[in-house]
């Protein structure tokens, strides 16, 4: 029996052995394909460095401009130093999401293990940058100097808790959205086998697929913009 959650099973690429940390799996394959696609677009596509861009080069320039403007607007001008990492995050998530929409493919970003590495990486990096830039003054992030004095310890406690929930919600948001979207797609695909509701299901699956294309971009955008927000907090902790 076809199960809508079967698509998320991590399988070894060769044979049926146990999955160890070094086993090449379908997750490894699709992440490698995402990296390959990004490299093709940005290394081969922009090789000409034409003043009047070719079609492929203009796509790369649109991505570059979008992310650079986002970093400058949200994180401030001194956040532009961290632009390469944020650009990498955006492109990897976007291309993983897009490649996962190919039928019979695998979606690495639906696995909490993949997104948690990205989310916690941002969390640790941002905390380290905050302490390196501001020293102990980084703790002002938790101490609201414009709140009434007797409320400040309570607010500080809430702020500390919300600070440590950030990487969890940051990674679960991406994994949850992609998992939910792909599960819904496969549920409607199961309905297509029932003759009575098959035409309705095919119309629905087209609409949901269009929505998933949109969600792929929005989730990559949201992940990146939240990274910029966290970076801004680290660079300018006083409110």
């Amino acid at each position, binding site marked *: 029996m076809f199960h809508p*959650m079967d698509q998320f099973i991590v399988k070894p690429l060769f044979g049926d052995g146990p999955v160890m940390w070094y086993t090449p799996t379908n997750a490894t394959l699709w992440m490698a394909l995402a990296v390959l696609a990004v490299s093709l677009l940005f290394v081969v596509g922009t090789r000409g460095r034409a003043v009047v861009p070719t079609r492929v080069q203009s796509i790369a320039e649109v991505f570059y401009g979008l992310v650079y403007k986002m970093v400058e607007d*949200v994180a401030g001008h001194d956040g532009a130093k961290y632009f390469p990492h944020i650009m990498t995050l955006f492109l990897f998530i976007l291309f993983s999401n897009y490649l996962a929409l190919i039928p019979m493919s695998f979606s690495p970003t639906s696995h909490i293990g993949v997104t948690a590495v990205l989310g916690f990486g941002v969390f640790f990096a941002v905390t380290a940058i905050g302490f390196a830039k501001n020293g102990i003054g980084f703790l002002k992030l938790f101490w609201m100097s414009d709140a009434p004095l007797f409320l400040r310890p309570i607010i500080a406690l809430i702020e500390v808790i919300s600070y440590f929930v950030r990487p969890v*919600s940051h990674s679960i*948001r991406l994994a*949850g959205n992609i*998992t939910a979207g792909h599960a819904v797609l496969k549920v409607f695909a199961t309905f297509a086998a029932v003759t009575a509701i098959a035409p309705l299901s095919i119309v629905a699956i087209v609409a949901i697929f269009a929505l998933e294309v949109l969600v792929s971009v929005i989730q990559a955008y949201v992940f990146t913009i939240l990274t910029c*927000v966290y970076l801004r907090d680290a660079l300018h902790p006083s409110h």
Partner: protein
Amino acid sequence: MELAAAAALGKFIGAGIAALGSGLAAIGVGNVAGNFLAGALRNPSAAGGQTATLFIGLAFAEALGIFAFLVALLLMFAV
């Protein structure tokens, strides 16, 4: 034996209740988008600069719905 049957039943009831959270998050997301649109129509020239804020607000409202969905998934497949 009856206890095991009740646990199996409770799993599905719990997952159903957790699904309510997704619907409630939808109200929140609608609130954010609706208020943004209302504000944008009053002052369209200022709306363009606030798209980033809109997406951040949507993301925060939506995250809690995703948490509810996660609880449902855990109850169905992990417990």
